[in-house]
């Protein structure tokens, strides 16, 4: 097992693992809507299935949040 950092918290993963695997492991509700950064670089959606993560990588999930008030 290896440790990567997902949304600021350590997480155990079985390597090799792609971004898509980590999305699945974290039960991301709408994977087609999430934006992903690896080590503070945005990853293109078409690379999710191929980009391999390394021990210690930092993965951030960014979600759409559209509320606010009026229109």
């Amino acid at each position, binding site marked *: 097992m290896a440790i990567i950092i997902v949304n600021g918290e350590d997480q155990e993963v079985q390597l090799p693992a792609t971004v898509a695997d980590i999305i699945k492991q974290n039960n991301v509700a709408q994977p087609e809507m999430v934006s992903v950064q690896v080590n503070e670089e945005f990853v293109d959606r078409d690379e999710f299935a191929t980009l391999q993560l390394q021990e210690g990588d930092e993965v951030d999930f*960014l979600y*759409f949040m559209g*509320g606010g008030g*009026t229109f």
Partner: protein
Amino acid sequence: MRFDFTEEELNRYSRHILLQDVGVEGQEKIREGKVLVVGAGGLGAPVAMYLAAAGVGTIGIVDGDVVDLSNLQRQIIHTTPDVGKWKVESAKETIQAINPHVKVEAHREFLMADNALDLVGEYDFVVDGTDNFPVKFLINDACVMAGKPFSHGGILRFEGQTFTHVPGSACYRCMFKSPPPPGAVPTCSQAGVLGAIAGMLGTIQAAETLKWLTGVGELLTDKLLTFNAKTMDFRKIHVKKTDKCPICGPNPSITELIDYEQAVCDLKNHG
């Protein structure tokens, strides 16, 4: 700089002026500021009220909607007798009651591709207080094109997120390339929101605006601040401007503003 504050103003703004980082000079910058608040709703309400109380010289408000009873749970700039009034008129009355020194410019219309650049162009700083993705992307694109700084804000259920953009820093499209398809991601009118969350996020946006006007501190640029009020966990995610960005990158594919389609349920049920 004029520094011609009256005794009444010096007294009104004394808690700002006492701040070493603000002082009379900072208060003058606030007074000279022209801020556009897009949406007089959950976020726009606390933003406009705090900016008014702070003494921002000119506050523009864009909103083409009327106050609905279901707004009052969080849109604290409006009160029960305001139900049925234009939001910009109701908001203007509250602002003038808080601080008669503020000049309020009420734009009774929705922000669209055909008026966004003109509206944004009249102001120094823009605050996104809208609750739908088409307008959030429109604000981003218009501000990037016009070289205007803005504060982005979004809330849903118990969560909020915000960042500040200045020319050269990461924009909304660096993080999210394009709006989700209509209806794919819920809005507050579909999924609900804890009213106080609007206050939590809106006051952060107001503070960012005042920081930008006075030049105090470090803005939330290249950082997405997110929080979950259920746990009161706050997190700053460092984000980077990307060269692949379709609007602020070196080879932008978006060269004019776009009116994206809205979810039908949002059109029927504003805010």
